[in-house]
């Protein structure tokens, strides 16, 4: 058990220790207060105000007029909102699923003890993650230009050109590939650290019992890796629901292109409602809905992974 200052101070000593104790408490409050002050002003208040704002019509300058649920109604009836919703989910799935699977494969291979290059490879795999999203998007936009490397590769393989920066699927694939490139190595390294935390005697015992490598994978590795998988799934889901920079920069070439329907995401929708159209009310309603969707997805994620976890335990 860890001992703390108060535990030491609370030992039956002379009376002055009591005031010392209070002093300690006040000091602690003082030490943690910057976070709470800042959060109150730039965290809590804005959240409450966003919810409040979502019931008003406001252009950020003039007076606010109460409109009830009208903002939500406007948003829900706006086809662009639903396009942004669908795009966000689709790009999330296209970016997250391959990313996590590739990361898992790489981590298992890195951990297999076959390679002595583990340290060096970890550094290389992590490099994409330190690059800014803007830089990633700019580099990838050369791959996905009309005569870029993407189409050259397709042509060499005998396929037709894909309109990466204007086609409905093209844009989504381009954006998803940027997400995959930037995050796969990050997740691989998290999985690798998870794999390294699994005690090797478990595998030895399994081998003695005659378990094959795929059985070891199914009954030891994956169940014990579950917390790490849960962590990465949750993080990448929340992250991809907030997708903004990649499509904004990628489609923003001609100034106003970022709201084009192939690539508009929910945060871009929110951004353009507020800062282009000055509809702060509907933007606030969008923010609230985005938040609710995020919570919903996190809960569903946890629920599904718990169910899956229960399954493997049942079979094992």
């Amino acid at each position: 058990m860890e001992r703390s200052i108060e535990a030491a101070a609370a030992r039956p000593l002379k009376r002055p220790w009591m005031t010392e104790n209070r002093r300690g408490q006040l000091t602690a409050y003082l030490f943690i207060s910057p976070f709470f002050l800042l959060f109150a002003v730039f965290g809590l208040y804005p959240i409450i105000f966003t919810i409040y704002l979502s019931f008003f019509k406001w252009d950020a300058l003039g007076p606010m007029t109460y409109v009830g649920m009208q903002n939500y109604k406007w948003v829900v009836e706006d086809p662009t909102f639903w396009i942004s919703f669908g795009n966000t989910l689709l790009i999330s799935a296209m970016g997250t699923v391959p990313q996590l699977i590739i990361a898992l494969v790489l981590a298992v291979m890195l951990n297999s003890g076959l390679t002595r290059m583990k340290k060096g490879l970890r550094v290389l795999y992590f490099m994409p993650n330190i690059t800014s999203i803007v830089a990633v998007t700019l580099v990838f936009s050369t791959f996905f230009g009309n005569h870029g490397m993407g189409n050259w590769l397709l042509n060499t393989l005998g396929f037709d050109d894909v309109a990466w920066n204007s086609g409905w699927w093209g844009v989504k694939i381009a954006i998803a590939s940027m997400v995959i490139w930037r995050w796969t190595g990050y997740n691989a390294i998290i999985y690798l650290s998870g794999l390294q935390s699994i005690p090797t005697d478990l595998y030895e015992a399994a081998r003695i019992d005659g378990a094959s490598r795929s059985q070891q994978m199914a009954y030891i590795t994956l169940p014990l890796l579950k917390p790490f998988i849960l962590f990465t799934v949750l993080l990448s889901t929340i992250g991809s629901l907030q997708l903004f920079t990649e499509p904004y920069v990628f489609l923003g070439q001609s100034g106003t292109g970022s709201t084009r329907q192939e690539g508009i995401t929910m945060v871009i929708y929110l951004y353009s409602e507020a800062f282009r159209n000055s509809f702060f009310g509907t933007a606030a309603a969008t923010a609230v809905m985005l938040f609710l969707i995020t919570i919903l997805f996190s809960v569903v994620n946890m629920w599904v992974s718990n169910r899956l976890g229960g399954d493997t335990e049942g079979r094992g």
Partner: protein
Amino acid sequence: MVKASTRNRNADKPGFAASFFYHLVLIVGAAFSVFPFYWMFVISTRDKSGAFHVPPLLTPSDQFVANFKRALEQSDFFHALGNSAIVSISVTASVLFFCTLAGYAFAKYQFRFKTPLFFFVIGTLFVPQQLGVLPTYVIMAKLQWIDTYKALIVPAMVNAFGIFWMRQYISSAVHTELIEAGRIDGCGHFRIFWNIAVPVITPAMATLGIFTFLNTWNDFFWPLVVLKNSEHFTIQIALQQLFTVRDGLDYGMIMSATFMATLPLLVVFLLFSRWFITGLTSGAVKS
């Protein structure tokens, strides 16, 4: 993964074929990670149309200086780099100080409502930034902080992740006996923190500092919202602006600027990669 493992179903140790296959996949993966960096460099040394040459150009040429000169004409590149440095350094210094202080209090002090307050801190991690962006913008407008660095620095001065991270580390790394010894010697609370706790926890501070710096440096959404005037742009906004030119994209110029903006981070990363990766992995293990 399944393929590779079924292949050696009955083997105790994977054979030569599996070893070859593993290395092949791992090296191809690494090539995918590194190639865009190399490509960025190649294009930055080619002329305007280099990015769309058929077949793709894979070797550098000699146009880098010319390209980067055009980038300097189009943007206030070094000014933007300086702005990013000012903002990132201020945020990092402040986050290190306040998060360590709060993490220390949560790890080593007993006070009322400690546990609920700590859970509250953790809970704020799950609130997406975009939820509060409109009112925060309004606050900035009221404070007349729009288009200033204060709008970027002040809200980021302390964060929940940093507090969580420092608390975890301080709990195990700073021994309570040390603190008690300091108190018996008559040191004040802050002096104990500064002279006894901080020197022990510099590794955790290094990791937190690197991550904070990177995140601030790479941030795009909030600077885009609050910065209006090009002389205040951070490097990310300046790069994005280069990309919005209407009369044909000059990729040589854009890539030369992107390369110059990425190079410092890359150098820092390669020098300190140990801190990055241990920080990342132990953060994941603990949460």
